[in-house]
């Protein structure tokens, strides 16, 4: 059971009411219990941010590292002992902004780690500044008239850089997310699971999603399965600019690094 993986004495956690990070933590732990990994041979790493508080509530070895450097530290852990299972929790500001270079080189090296990116479109912990994934026209404290810069597509970036498994889900699709994390954990090589989640305090409050359930309803209606998205593109159907494709984008076997047999 996943309750055995939680530090029950640390709960309730610091996340705001309705924060998606707790849901994602549940799904990752559920997937890890399905793999049957040993708790003493699993390491969780994180950078800085709301999402990066998650390993503190999990009963394994963990590293809470400097901002954006979680993947660099994970590379070190994996190379030091390739038999360890390494999972990285990271946020969008952590992964796409300051850790962008580590991210693309982690993908290029195809090191055997699993990265779960909790994408809440904002720097939630520091007060809601705009991040590289803030969608066009959305308000944050640093974009009071709406974001004018085009956002990053982390999935496309990971595919182009060479990751072995790339998927995107939302915090509403908990079952699918659990399955995707399970596949990512078992795939040798770099796996990225991008999870769009809600931040009712910093993002929702300024963008007309005041209640956590409002943003969940948005995720439910605007997440379009990849197959349907491609069909809609082919038939020239009008796709709402708020919508985004979800699903498994890539599963391939490029040369990997850090797998015990090859190390």
């Amino acid at each position, binding site marked *: 059971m996943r*309750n055995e993986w*939680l530090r029950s004495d640390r*709960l*309730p*956690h610091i*996340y*705001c*009411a*309705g*924060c*998606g*990070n*707790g*849901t994602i933590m*549940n*799904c990752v732990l*559920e997937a890890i219990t399905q793999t049957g990994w040993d708790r003493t041979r699993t390491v969780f790493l994180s950078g800085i941010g709301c999402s990066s508080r998650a390993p503190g509530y999990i009963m394994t070895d963990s590293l809470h590292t400097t901002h954006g450097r979680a993947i660099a530290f994970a590379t070190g852990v994996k190379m030091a002992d390739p038999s360890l299972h390494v999972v990285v929790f990271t946020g969008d500001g952590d992964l796409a902004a300051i850790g962008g270079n580590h991210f693309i080189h982690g993908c290029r090296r195809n090191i055997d780690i699993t990265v779960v990116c909790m994408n809440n479109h904002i720097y939630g912990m520091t007060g809601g500044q705009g991040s590289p994934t803030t969608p066009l026209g959305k308000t944050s404290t640093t974009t009071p008239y709406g974001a004018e810069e085009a956002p990053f597509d982390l999935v496309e970036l990971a595919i182009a850089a060479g990751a072995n498994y790339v998927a995107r889900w939302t*915090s*509403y699709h*908990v*079952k699918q997310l*659990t399955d995707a994390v399970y596949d990512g954990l078992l795939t040798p090589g770099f796996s990225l699971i991008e999870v769009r989640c809600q931040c*009712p305090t910093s993002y929702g409050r300024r963008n007309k999603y005041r*209640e*956590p*359930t409002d943003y*969940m*309803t948005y995720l439910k209606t605007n997440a379009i399965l990849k197959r349907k998205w491609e069909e809609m593109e082919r038939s020239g159907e009008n796709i709402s600019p708020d919508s985004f494709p979800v699903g498994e984008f890539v599963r391939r076997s490029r040369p990997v690094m850090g797998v015990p047999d090859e190390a």
Partner: protein
Amino acid sequence: MKLEIDESRCKGCNLCTLVCPYKIYRPGSRPNRKGIYVPEMDRPERCPNCRLQELYGRRLCGMCALICPDQAIKWVPEKPYEPMKVVIEY
């Protein structure tokens, strides 16, 4: 098995009321000691996972426990047979 909301962990975000296919959870009406409106359960014996999990030997739904960001919803084992009054609706 029966569902239980841990009041010391719940923060009252009402996500469980959104996802339950049987609408077992309802938004709470009165605040608890910490001022949090913990959702109330409306006839929780309707949950198929609670009734049939033992029979099928696997988890059937579990959406509420997975989506709860505060890990507040869990199943607790109960005695195999507890007589209860069932009201039939017409």
